[in-house]
């Protein structure tokens, strides 16, 4: 009797366990891949930062005290903040227009926005080199109008504008996701209650879009921290970003230890930003 009563309970207890192993089996190829080609190398980088050329935390000490590294870090954060802000200012009206447009129009606009994703990163960066070059169309236009301008290329301006261009779609998609969910009747009701179009924007749209604004800013900021190609090709040699300096340390000085330490610092900064976001909003919401 006891056995008869006990066995279904036991088998019920075991069955879900067996079933719950299967998803993990399906994940195995990915987990093995990530472990072999991401976690292990990452651990090696972390190791190298304290063992190359000899054991110790000398690289971190020099990063923390060397004016050059501190300025690079500060420039990197400042640039990322500037790019995120530019993306917000440019992206908000676009996302707002998309949310207000008819479904077909919104889909067409979304294609245009994401089109730059389909164009190679390098092509877009070189395109900016052509556009902003000394004999490029923008310089020619400024000359024709008679506006005095300095060098456009190889400045913080040129790398900022290119990174904004590349990262704008992330911001637009983040904002569109929240703006699209705002009920049109809320805007109508605000208007009927006496809110001018600017008041509707300020008192209804912006508060309801706040999660998307924070998401977009975080996403663009974090992605921008690690930018390499664009600042190298377009940016000012005097205002480098961390990723560029890491590359320089390896390629020009073969200083693997210092480069690894910088990479760890960059990764840690990124994780800190994401950690702050997670504590306040929950990381699962970042991608909408």
């Amino acid at each position: 009797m006891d056995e008869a009563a006990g066995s279904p309970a036991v088998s019920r207890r075991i069955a879900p366990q067996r079933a719950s192993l299967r998803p993990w089996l399906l994940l195995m190829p990915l987990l093995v891949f990530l472990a072999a080609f991401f976690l292990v190398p990452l651990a090696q980088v972390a190791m190298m930062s304290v063992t190359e050329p000899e054991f110790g935390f000398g690289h971190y000490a020099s990063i923390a005290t060397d004016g050059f590294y501190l300025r690079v870090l500060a420039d990197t954060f400042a640039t990322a903040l500037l790019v995120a802000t530019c993306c917000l200012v440019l992206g908000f009206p676009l996302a707002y227009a998309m949310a207000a447009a008819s479904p077909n129009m919104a889909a067409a606009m979304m294609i245009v926005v994401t089109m730059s994703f389909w164009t190679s990163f390098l092509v877009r960066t070189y395109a900016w080199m052509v556009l902003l070059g000394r004999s490029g169309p923008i310089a020619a236009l400024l000359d024709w109008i008679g506006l005095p301008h300095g060098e456009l290329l190889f400045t913080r301006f040129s790398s900022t504008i290119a990174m904004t261009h590349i990262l704008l779609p992330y911001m637009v998609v983040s904002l569109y996701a929240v703006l699209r969910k705002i009920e049109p009747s809320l805007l109508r009701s605000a208007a009927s209650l006496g809110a001018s179009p600017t008041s509707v924007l300020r008192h209804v749209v912006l508060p309801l879009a706040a999660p998307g604004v924070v998401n977009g800013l975080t996403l663009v900021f974090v992605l921008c921290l690690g930018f390499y190609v664009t600042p190298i090709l377009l940016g000012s040699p005097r205002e480098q970003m961390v990723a560029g300096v890491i590359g320089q340390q390896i390629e020009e000085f073969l200083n693997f230890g210092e480069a690894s330490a910088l990479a760890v610092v960059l990764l840690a900064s990124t994780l800190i930003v994401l950690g702050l976001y997670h504590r306040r909003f929950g990381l699962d919401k970042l991608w909408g």
Partner: protein
Amino acid sequence: MSAPYLELRGLGKSYDGRTRALDNVSLTAAKGEFITFLGPSGSGKTTTLMLVAGFESASEGDILIEGRSIGRVPPHKRGIGVVFQNYALFPHRAAAENVAFPLLMRKMPKAQAMAKAAEMLGLVGLERFGGRYPREMSGGQQQRVALARALVFDPALLLLDEPLGALDKNLREQMQIEIKAVQRRLGVTTIFVTHDQSEAMAMSDRIVVFDGGRIQQVGAPLDIYRYPSSSFVARFVGDSNILAARLTDPAGGQAEIAGIGTVRVPALPAARAGDAIELLLRPECLKPGSGLDNAARLTVDVIVHFGDSALVTGHAGGTPLRARLEGLAAQGISAGDTLPLSWATSSSHVIGRDAAG
């Protein structure tokens, strides 16, 4: 004659330049009147409301309040309170802040606005709910907040767009009474849009029946119910028997109905013998027995008991007929029975002809 409080003058709306969503809608309303726009979906009732609110602009015609055109005034300057079907409360503001919103938009100092909002919430029975957010409130409570918010700034007009559609039946009837009470107390001229004819009957001073982008009939609820101007109105407002008949003696008020025979109808001196007419007989006007002016024998197909009443569906000769009997009187009737019924001539109506007297 002084100008009416609200006037819709020949309103037309076309979205594509060809098909007309709204055609020549004209209407006047007195101050304090409760008017219901009744019609099926796509009949133009909501489009008309949107034009009055200013969310859409009319292709033709004008809207006047106290003789002043508001056709070109943007919605936020019209001073018209609107309650939406989904309430459209601001989810990021508590109930009291929602109600204070229109006052703050009008630059009222915050303390004064919050005090007035609290007072208004009291009027709709939510004095203790000011701090609740919309997501923490039931549908009926949200509805009341929306009503308070639309009324707190003394609007020139109150528009209600199917506001009770999302509520369950009991709550809907309770809200009908409450809305009507608040409206009467504040004396605000109101346009109420619904596709529910019983709601329209229960609440309105006058009903405007819409169909196909046009006004079909305007009148007091009971006038529309008793004297519909078309078979559409007769079918849409209330339950109906519409019987095809042929006049045999217009002035004397006699007609012939297939399967029933000769019946008396309201006199139509202007009509000619032989004219085809549609006779409206409301199901509740058919009484058991043969004591009234006209008689018919109903063969029962189906009987549905509601307790207070019962709906009997059947036919007399070849003519389908529905009768609503009192619950007790209907006891014992079953399908297949033959039932003698009769009706008073004065309770019938010839559709599309003026009520004689």
